[in-house]
C-alpha cells in the first residue's frame, strides 16, 4: 500500500451535521471495562465517535474489539465503567439503543432455508416495520448492497461475500442512526470491497450516519475511516486521525516526495544532487516501487528530513531551489506514513502502566461528560491558515493536493502535526491516553 491512499474529506457533511445535533458524539464511553474471569477483555476504554464519521477499530484478534461492540449494544454487561450510545445507556435500556443501531456481527449468519428477502423481512418485523414500508425499505437496501437480483434465492446458495453484503443490508433495514460493523469486509472479493467501502462512505456522508467498524485489514481501515482507534490487549492505545496517530507513533522522521517530469537521467540526477544540498534534508532516495514509476512516468525522490528540522521550512527551501534552477517539477507532497507502519509501531510499544485509579474520580463514574474528563495533553499546534474551517482530516486532504498546499501550510510555521483542535467549542478529542507529562 502506498501512502497516497487518503480518506476523502468529510468536512462538509460532518460540519453540517454538527449544526443539526446538539451533541455530535454518538458513542461515548468512559472507563468501560469487561473482565472474563482472569482475562481483562476490555480495559478502561475511553472512546468517542461523532455523528457522520467513520471510525475504525483496529486490532488483532482477541484485542477486545468485539467485546467492546457487544457492550455498546447492551448484549454484554460491562464489569465497570459507563457508556452512552445516542445519549442512551445500553446497559440499562438496550431496547432503544438496539432500535437505533444497526449491527452486523462478525461471521454474520442467516437462516439458510429462507431467501435473502425473507430474512430481511423477519428483521423488519422484529423492528416493528410492517407492510409496504418494510417492502420498500428492503428493496432499497438490497439495491444498495447490490443484491437485488439474488434477493429471492435461498440464503444457502449465497457465497460468503454475499452473506456479508446481506449482513450490511440487514443492519440498514431498521434505518439506523449508527451502524456498527464487525469485520465487514473480510470475505468479500477485492472489487466487492471497493463497492462496500464506497457504500459506507456514501451512507456516512449523505445520511449523516455514524459508522463504527472493526477490522484487522489495515488498508481498508486507512482508506475509509475518518478516525481510527488502535486496540491492543483490551486497551485503546491510540485514537485519532491517521495524521494524529502518525505523530504519536511515527518515528519522527518526516518525508517529502518530489517528482520531476520524465526526462533524461542527467536531469533527474542533477535534481537529486540539488535536493540533497537543501539544508535540513538528511538523505534522498529513489522510491523503491517500480509500479509507481510505470504509472507516473517518473521516479519521485523521497527526501528524508533531518530530525529537528522544520518540514515546512524544508518544503519552502525545496521550492526555492526548484525555482532557482528551473527544475521540471511534477509533484511535491509530504509523505503520510502508512497505517501499517503506525500500527506496527503502536502495537510494539510497551503498554503504559495502568494509571486508571487516579484518573477517575468516583463521582464521575456514572456520567461521562466532557467537563470531568481530565484534559489530555494536546499535541496539536494552532491550526494553520490553509486548513481553516475544516476538521483534522482536511489537513491530510490538503496534503494530498500536491504542491499548492506546501506554501500555505508552511506559512503557519507548523511542524507536520496538523491541527488537532475542533472548529467549535467541543472538547478536545482524546488523541492519546497519557502523555509523558
Amino acid at each position, binding site marked *: 500500500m502506498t501512502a497516497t491512499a487518503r480518506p476523502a474529506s468529510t468536512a*462538509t*457533511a460532518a460540519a*453540517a*451535521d454538527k*449544526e*443539526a*445535533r446538539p451533541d455530535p458524539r454518538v458513542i461515548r464511553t468512559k472507563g468501560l471495562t469487561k473482565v472474563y474471569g482472569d482475562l481483562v477483555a476490555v480495559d478502561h476504554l475511553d472512546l468517542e465517535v461523532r455523528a457522520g464519521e467513520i471510525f475504525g477499530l483496529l486490532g488483532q484478534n482477541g484485542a477486545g474489539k*468485539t467485546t467492546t461492540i*457487544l457492550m455498546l*449494544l447492551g*448484549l*454484554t454487561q460491562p464489569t465497570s465503567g459507563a457508556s452512552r450510545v445516542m445519549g442512551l445507556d445500553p446497559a440499562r435500556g438496550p*431496547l*432503544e439503543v*438496539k*432500535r437505533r*443501531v444497526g*449491527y*452486523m*456481527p462478525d*461471521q*454474520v*449468519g*442467516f*437462516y*439458510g*432455508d429462507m431467501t435473502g428477502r425473507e430474512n430481511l423481512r*423477519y*428483521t423488519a*418485523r*422484529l*423492528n*416493528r*416495520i*410492517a*407492510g409496504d*414500508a*418494510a417492502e420498500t*425499505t428492503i428493496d432499497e437496501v438490497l439495491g444498495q448492497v447490490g443484491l437485488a437480483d439474488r434477493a429471492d434465492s435461498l440464503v444457502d446458495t449465497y457465497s460468503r461475500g454475499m452473506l456479508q453484503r446481506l*449482513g450490511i443490508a*440487514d443492519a440498514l433495514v*431498521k*434505518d439506523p*442512526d449508527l451502524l456498527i460493523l464487525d469485520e465487514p469486509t473480510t470475505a468479500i472479493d477485492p472489487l466487492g470491497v471497493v463497492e462496500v467501502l464506497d457504500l459506507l462512505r456514501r451512507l456516512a456522508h*449523505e*445520511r*449523516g*450516519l455514524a459508522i463504527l467498524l472493526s477490522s484487522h485489514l489495515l488498508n481498508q481501515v486507512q482508506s475509509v475511516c475518518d478516525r481510527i482507534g488502535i486496540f491492543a490487549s483490551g486497551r485503546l492505545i491510540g485514537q485519532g486521525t491517521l495524521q494524529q496517530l502518525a505523530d504519536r507513533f511515527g518515528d519522527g522522521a518526516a518525508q517529502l516526495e518530489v517528482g520531476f517530469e520524465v526526462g533524461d537521467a542527467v536531469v533527474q540526477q542533477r535534481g537529486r544532487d540539488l535536493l540533497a544540498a537543501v539544508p535540513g534534508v538528511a538523505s534522498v532516495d529513489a522510491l523503491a516501487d517500480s509500479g509507481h514509476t510505470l504509472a507516473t512516468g517518473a521516479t519521485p525522490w523521497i527526501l528524508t528530513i533531518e530530525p529537528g528540522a522544520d518540514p515546512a521550512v524544508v518544503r519552502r527551501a525545496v521550492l526555492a531551489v526548484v525555482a532557482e534552477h528551473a527544475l521540471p517539477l511534477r509533484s511535491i507532497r509530504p509523505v503520510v506514513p502508512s497505517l501499517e507502519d503506525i500500527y506496527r509501531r503502536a502495537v510494539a510499544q510497551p503498554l503504559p502502566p495502568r494509571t486508571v485509579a487516579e484518573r477517575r474520580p468516583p463521582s464521575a463514574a456514572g456520567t461521562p461528560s466532557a467537563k470531568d474528563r481530565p484534559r489530555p495533553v494536546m499535541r496539536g499546534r494552532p491550526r494553520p491558515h490553509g486548513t481553516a474551517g475544516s476538521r483534522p482530516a482536511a489537513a491530510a486532504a490538503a496534503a494530498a493536493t500536491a504542491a499548492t498546499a506546501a506554501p500555505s501550510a508552511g506559512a503557519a510555521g507548523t511542524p507536520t502535526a496538523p491541527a488537532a483542535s475542533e472548529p467549535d467549542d467541543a472538547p478536545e478529542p482524546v488523541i492519546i491516553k497519557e502523555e509523558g507529562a
Partner: protein
Amino acid sequence: MSAAAEAPRRLERGVPRAGWMVVGRKEFGDHLLSARFTVLVVVLGLAAAIPLYFAAAAIRDVASSVTDSQAVFVALFWLAPDVSDGITLPSVVGFMAYVAPLLGLAFAFDAINGERADGTLPRLLSQPIHRDDVVNGKFFAGLAVIGLVLVAVVGAIAAFGLIRLGLVPAPAEVLRIVLWVMVTFIYVSLWLAFGMLLSVVVRRAATSALIGFGVWMLLTVFGGLIVSLLGGVLAPLSGTVEQQLSNNALRETITRLLPDTLYREASLVLLNPQVTTVSTPATIGGYEQASQRIPSLLSLDQSFILIWPQVVGLVAITVALFALAYVQFMRQEVRA
C-alpha cells in the same frame, strides 16, 4: 447539502407487537414447513393407527357383552389388543407414551444452539427485542405445533372409531378424550422444555439430540426395568404379606418419579372409567376393601380428582425445566 434535507427519514412503524410473538410466528412457520414435522406426523400417525386397528377389531368382538358400558368408545384408546395368541400390542396410550417425548424433543433440541451454529443469534439479539423473547417465542411456537399435531392425530383416531365401530361417543367420553389430549399436551411440553434446556446448555445440536434421545430411551424404554431392578434391591418382594404390600407401595412411589409413569397413570384413569385407583393397596385391610368393592364406573370429575396429583407433577416438572432453560439462556454470553 444540509443536514435537514439529508436527515434519515423515519420509517413508519407498524402496530407494536411483542417480540416473542414475532419470533414465535416465524418459528411456527418454520416448524410447519420442516421435514421433521412431516416425519413426526407420519410416525405418530402410524404409532396410533396400528394399535387402533387391532383395538377396533377386539372391541367389535366383545362389544355385544359390554353394550351397557358407557365407555366403549374410549376403550379404543386404552385397550391393549391381542394380535394373536399371547402377543399383545401396546394400546394407543402405550404407544403415545413412547412416541410423544420424541415429538417434544424434535421441536426443541436445536432451538438455541441451532441459532448459534448458524451465526444468527447475535443478529437476532441485536434487534429491538428482549432477550427472553427469543426463548419464549420458540417455546410457544413449539407448544403450538405440538397442540396442532396432537389434535390432528386424536381427531383422526376418533374419526376412525366413528366409522369402524359405528358408535357415537357420549358427551362424557368426548370430554374424557379432550382432557386426555390436554394431559398428553402437558407431557409433550415437558419434553419440549427438556429439549429447550438441552439446546441452551449443549453447544452442538447433534450432541443435544443424542443426549435427548438417550434420556428418552432411559426413561421410557428402560425406565421400568431400572426401577424394578432398584426396587428389587431396596424393597424386595419377600417376607410377610404386609411387608410385601408395603414394599410394593414403595416401588410404586419410586416408579412415579418417572414422568412416563405419571402420564400413563393419568391417561388410563382419564380414558377408562372402570379404573378406580392408581395405587395397589399398601395394607391387608386396604387389599380386602379393594377386593370387596363392587366394580363401578367413575364419573369424570372423580376420575380427574384421582389423577390430579399426577397432572400437577407433570406441570411442575415442565415449569421447572423451562425455568432452568430460561435462566441459563439469560445468563449466557452472546458469543459462545
